[in-house]
Each structure stands twice: as structure tokens, then as C-alpha cells.
């Protein structure tokens, strides 16, 4: 018996519960020759803001033990550029396209969300709330509950697309943010974003990244992510998409077991571009071995 892997994340129907993590899979074409995009559960594209951005100075990445430190700085073509250059390509595939959006102000978030609202081929929006808020000072949208509430509410009012805020890991109570997202009308939540971190060179006495600090991703953060996903999944009824260090089907099954309705493969795609597809096949095989008919039968199967 072939298990049914399909799942629905806040109105986005997916063939399987494995999507790509934003920022690790480009906009799709970069991996299309290596991976059959149609076999993915969904593609989450690199973060898009209102206008074209260049990102941070180099070096932007540094290797860490069991992980990757990055401060890319969200370079991108802006809404119009993304729609113009990438959407015709992505529309060729039978896979939901989730656009990760970000802004420097709430108005920018709203503007970006509104512009994507009627773009054919966009299945949903993932809201990156971890960028600095220039207009409101140095607070981060993702780590200030009031700001978080304001931005999610504003975006909710600007779009009819399924909305999935991506939660920051460096908060005191992740459940508060999950509940807040649900209360503000989010259709799902995803977590976690990379963990703020830094790396230095003792010879040069300089930071390893031009931006000084960056975000840590990869297997190093998986235990942190797993805990946060477990806490968030207990706090809300809306679907939770878990990510953070997933590199194998076993990793993904752990996230699903603690309550994630779907998972995203991130840093591992840099090492093996087809990791996400291997995860899909591994989940399918595992469910078949356990004689489970659907992936939903495994979601939340954790026995604490």
C-alpha cells in the first residue's frame, strides 16, 4: 500500500508534506535542472520585498560546526522583478509556490502582500518577520509581540492569500507568538528562522561575516527547532510547518511526530540539492513500513 502523503497547509493543497525553506532554494530555476520540482510538496522562494535589493557585503557565509552561518541580507529582484523574471517559469510546474515576503516597514509588508494578492500562480505567502524595523527603531518584528501582532494583522487585511508567518526562534515564549499569529488570522505558521549567531577569526580579530552577526542554520539547530515546533503545535489549531536542520527523512519524521503538519528542508539542500526529494521518499517508505495509510496518521504521534 502506498501511503497518501498529501496534506493541506492553511488552504494550500500539497502532494506531500515536504517543502523547500526560503533562502535555500533560490526562486526555483536554480534547482530545476537538478530536482524535479513537480515532486516537491511546495516551493518557498527566497524572500521578496517591494523593490530590488542587493544584500549585505561579502563575506556572507561562514561554516560552523554542524551548521552554516549566513548574513546574506535578503538580496532580491523586488516584487515586479520576481513576478516578471520567475513567475512564468514557476507556473509551468504543478507545485504550489509560496512567496516569502519581507519589508522594512509595516506599510512595505502590506504593499508587498497586496501586490501578490492577485498574481496568478502564487499559492500563499510566508511572512518573514525577522528583519530590522527601520521606521520603528531597532526592534525586530519577530521578537516584539506587539509589532508582530501589528504586522500580521495589517498583512491579513491586505491579502486573501493563505498567510503563514515565519516565527523567530529567539523569543521567550514561542507559544505566545503562535497564538498571536492564529488570533490575527494567519492560516498557518512556520518555524524556525535561523538562530542569531556569530563567528570570529582569532588570527585577524575580525568577524567571519561582513555583517558581523548572522543566522545559524543546519543540523546544529535541529534540537532547538524541534522543541519550539512542539511547543507551538500544542498552542494552536492552525497547521505548523517545521524546519531547522532537517537533512533526512528521519529528521522530518521527528518534526511531524511532534505536531508539524509539514516540514521544510533548508541548509541540507546546499549539500545535496535533492535532499527534499529524498526526504519525501523516506517518509513514504517509513509510513509504508509502519502500515500507516496517510501522513496525517503520523502527525502528532509523539508520546511524551
Amino acid at each position, binding site marked *: 500500500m502506498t501511503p497518501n502523503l498529501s496534506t493541506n497547509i492553511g488552504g494550500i493543497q500539497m502532494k506531500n508534506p515536504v517543502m523547500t525553506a526560503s533562502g535555500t532554494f533560490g526562486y526555483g530555476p536554480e534547482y530545476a535542472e537538478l530536482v524535479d520540482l513537480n515532486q516537491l510538496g511546495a516551493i518557498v522562494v527566497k524572500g521578496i520585498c517591494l523593490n530590488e535589493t542587493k544584500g549585505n557585503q561579502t563575506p556572507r557565509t561562514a561554516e560552523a560546526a554542524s551548521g552554516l552561518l549566513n548574513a546574506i541580507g535578503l538580496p532580491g529582484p523586488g*516584487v*515586479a522583478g520576481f*513576478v*516578471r*523574471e520567475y*513567475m*512564468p*517559469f514557476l*507556473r509551468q510546474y504543478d507545485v504550489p509556490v509560496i512567496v516569502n515576503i519581507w519589508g522594512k516597514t509595516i506599510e512595505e509588508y502590506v504593499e508587498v502582500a497586496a*501586490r501578490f494578492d*492577485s*498574481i*496568478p*500562480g*502564487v499559492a500563499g505567502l510566508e511572512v518573514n518577520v525577522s528583519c530590522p524595523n527601520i521606521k520603528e527603531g531597532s526592534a525586530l518584528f519577530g521578537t516584539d509581540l506587539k509589532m508582530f501582532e501589528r504586522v500580521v494583522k495589517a498583512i491579513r487585511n491586505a491579502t486573501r492569500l493563505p498567510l503563514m508567518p515565519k516565527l523567530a526562534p529567539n523569543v521567550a515564549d514561542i507559544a505566545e507568538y503562535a497564538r498571536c499569529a492564529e488570533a490575527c488570522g494567519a492560516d498557518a505558521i512556520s518555524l524556525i528562522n535561523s538562530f542569531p549567531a556569530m563567528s570570529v577569526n582569532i588570527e585577524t580579530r575580525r568577524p567571519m561575516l561582513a555583517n558581523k552577526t548572522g543566522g545559524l542554520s543546519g543540523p546544529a539547530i535541529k534540537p532547538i527547532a524541534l522543541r519550539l515546533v512542539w511547543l507551538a503545535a500544542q498552542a494552536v489549531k492552525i497547521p505548523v510547518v517545521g524546519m531547522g536542520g532537517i537533512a533526512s527523512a528521519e529528521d522530518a519524521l521527528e518534526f511531524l511526530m511532534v505536531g508539524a503538519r509539514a516540514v521544510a528542508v533548508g541548509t541540507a539542500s546546499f549539500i545535496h540539492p535533492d535532499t527534499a526529494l529524498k526526504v519525501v521518499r523516506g517518509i513514504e517508505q517509513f509510513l509504508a513500513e509502519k502500515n500507516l495509510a496517510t501522513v496525517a496518521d503520523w502527525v502528532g504521534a509523539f508520546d511524551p
Partner: protein
Amino acid sequence: MKRRPLMFWVLLFAGIVAASWWTLHIPRDPQALFRAIPAQATWLTTHKNLAGRWTDIAANPLLASVASALEMEPEEWREQASSENTQEFLDLLARDEIVLAYVPEMRSTGEPAWVFSAWLGGRSQRLRWTLNSLKEASLRQAASRNGWGVWVWTPKGMRDGSRITLALVEGMLIGCISPDTLAIEDVLACYDRQLPSLADDTGATTSLTDDSADRGWFRMSGPNPWGPRIHYSLKFLPGGALAGKVYAPSAPSMATPVLPANSLSDFSDIMRDIPSVALVADRALVRGWIEGGFNTPVGREVAGLLHGEEPGALAFSLVGDPYSGRFNAVRLPTLLAAFTVDDPTQVTARVNAAFDRLNAIYPWGLVPQLAMVGTQRVYAIESTAGSAYSKMEANERIAYAPLQQSVLFSSNLEGLTKLLRDARREATERGRFAEGLQRMRDGHALGYLWIDLERSAKLLRLAVTAWSLKLMIEDPMGSQPTRQKLNEAKAWIDSLAPQKTLEVWARPHQDLLEYEFRLGGEE
């Protein structure tokens, strides 16, 4: 010899008169004219008393122009139109009513044919005797079909080897023009009610919308012979003008809108007397047409841009030198489209959003690039897709400018730039375009079209010539058929130029849309 009483002679005379009357008189039955026309006809035209009106009709310069487009010299046309033979021919066939129809496929032959029927009444007997006694090489009597006498006439100069097959039935001459004389079998079978005819379709005969002497209808070919038709009527006016009405199916709820007095006044100030073609229409009407007929992503975006809560108008104009533009280096008239918008400040955002959506569907990569004409913002629409359009010169690209009440799109940036510069320089006086807007309001119309035929013919002729030249240079042999068609198009353009102006008003008429037009004559 016994002398007959007077009463005998009176009765004998009355008997002869009665017999003659009985033989020659056939009660007029106009519906019978349609019995001869196959139901699958796609074009029908009926004419009353053509013979009596022929002198006036033949003098209409439009017919001479049409004849010229059909490669008949004007002198030859005048000669033939005014000849005694033509008048006699019309006296014989067209003193009452004549019906002509085009049938795209006759059942018997599978070929197209022209079918006609003319009411002769008692004169049909005289014609029968004439045809029987006539010694003419081009006319021969064929075997009768369904009991009706049939003659085949092969006049000289008929195209495609077509022949005219005639049949005389009760008070009517019916016939068809087709290379295959077998086609008359369909016509007679229709008349004898063995095949469906237009007489079986009340819509084809009774819904001819007015009692004009010249009227008819046409419809698109299709499997359903009773599909919707577009009816028309014509009036040949003194002075060589032609007026008429065309009735097309329309939404029943269509109401006449009130066009606000200042609608498109900003565009009107730019146009002044410049355009040689101008079309003004109710914005909601055009939007409805686009939504109904062009349900594509592009159509939906255009309809979206035309959306507005307030009554508004949309206008098209065609302008020539010095406001022409170029397309791949070929100089062409500039086509302009302007429509009122509820909130002009939102135009750029709405256009950008439309581009976003189209770019998401098609690999066009449309990008608006700002260019300033004085203080006026103008956006040239560029493409990043590497297509033929993206390789065009910047001045050749489509452009738009948000105006005070409306937005103006142009087929090229060059023409738009010149228009905006000149509009700023010259005093804004009431021009031909503004008059057109007023005539639309006065006529309570949903739409109004005005064409300066002399100027637009010149424009179109230049454009066609330039295009033909380009084709000849690029592919002398391969482009020959296309260039031939372009030459024919030029002949038609020239044939209409002497009419000077064409005006068309569109307005609701019951559940139809009425297009009233006037071609030529004094304004």
C-alpha cells in the same frame, strides 16, 4: 346567320377578361420570396422597387467607388449603370421586390452559391414566353425540375466559370449563381418545401427591423442556421450620401448612459483637430464587450483598468504625421487610446499591478520606464524578455501617460511625446474631437465613430505602401501573395476616400444595439 344578342358578347368579353386575369394575375405573396432561399444562407439582402429608384442609386458615388475597387473603370460603370439594357433588366426583375442571398454551402453541390428570387406577379408568364422563344446562344432551356421550367444562362465575363440558373415558379423568378447548375435543385426543393428555407424561420423575414426599401441581415457561418443575425437597412440620400442602421444582438439590460460633460476633456485638448479617426464609447460598454469577448488574462486586465464607479468614456484616435511613430523602422500612424479613470493618482499603481499579473503568466517581462515631457509623466513600456519587442527602439515602444482625468495609451512613445509637447504649446481650442464628443452626447449614444476618410485613407495608404515595400525588400518572392492582398486593400481604401466622412452612432434599441451610420454627403 343568326345574330347573337348583345349579352352574349358582353359575357364572352367578360369571360375572356376573367380568363386572362385568372391566367395572368397572381396574388402578391412577399413571403414566397423567402421560400426559395435555403435556410443556411448567411447573408440576405432585399430591395424594393430597385428599378424605379435605380437612377438615383446609380448616381451614388459610393457604388462607383465599389465598382472601382472591383477593377471596373468609372467610365465603364457609369455606362453600364445608365444603359437601357440595365434599366430594362431591372424593369423586368426588380419592379417589385428582389431578394439576394449568399449560401456558403449548397446541399446538392457542397459549393457556395448566390441565390435570388424576384417577384414578377403576372409578368412571370410573359417572361416564360420570352425565355421560351428567345434565340440566344448564351441561354438554353434545361430539363425541368420538380415540374418547374429551368434555363441556364452563361453570360460572358463571369468569374470562376459561374453560370446563372433560372427557374420560373408562381409569380417569381428564382435562380442561383454557381459554377454547378445542380444548385438550382436546392432552390426549387426549398421552394417546394422539401428542404428548410428562410420562410420557415420567422426571424429571418419578420424581424427585418424597419420598412426601408433596402435592408437585410447577415450572420456568421455555423452549424445552426437559426443563429443570431445582424440586421441592417440602407438609405440612399440625395447628394450621394448613404445612411443606414445596423442592429446587433446585445445585452437586454443595456441602458443609455449619460456621458458627463467634461469627460475626456483633457484628451480632447490634446487631440484638437489632429485625429483622422476617432472613436468614443461608453467605458462600461467597452468593458462589457471585452469581458464577454476576450476572456483572456490580457482581456481581464484591460477590463480591470476600465473599471470605474462613475460614468466614463473611452476614446481611440488614429493620428498621422507629424505624430506618426515607427514600428521596426516602418513609419506608421499612431494609435491612441484614452479612458477616464475615477482616481488618476492610482493609474500608475494599477498599471503596474496589471503588469505584475501578466508577467506572472507570460514571459514578457513588462516594465514601465519613466520619461518626462515637461512636467508630464510618461511611461514607456519596456520588456526584459529578450523578445522582438524588447529589441525595438525606445521611441517605438508602447507608452502611456496619466492625464488629469484619464490615462492615455499610445502605440509608440515618439508620437505621444510630440502630442504632449504640442498640446502644451498650442492654445486649447475646441477641435473636431471635442465636437465628436458633443455629437455623441447629442445623439444619446453609447458610442460614436468619426472617420475623416480622405485623411485616414492617405494614412492607411501610406502605411500599407510602407509595409508592402518592407515585405518586398525582405522577401521579394515569398511576400508576393501578401503584397497582392495589400494592393487590393489599397484599392478599397481609395474607393471610400471620396465619401469624405463616415459617422457611426451606437445606441440601445429594445434588446438590440443599433448602429446608425452616415457615409458621405454634406454634414
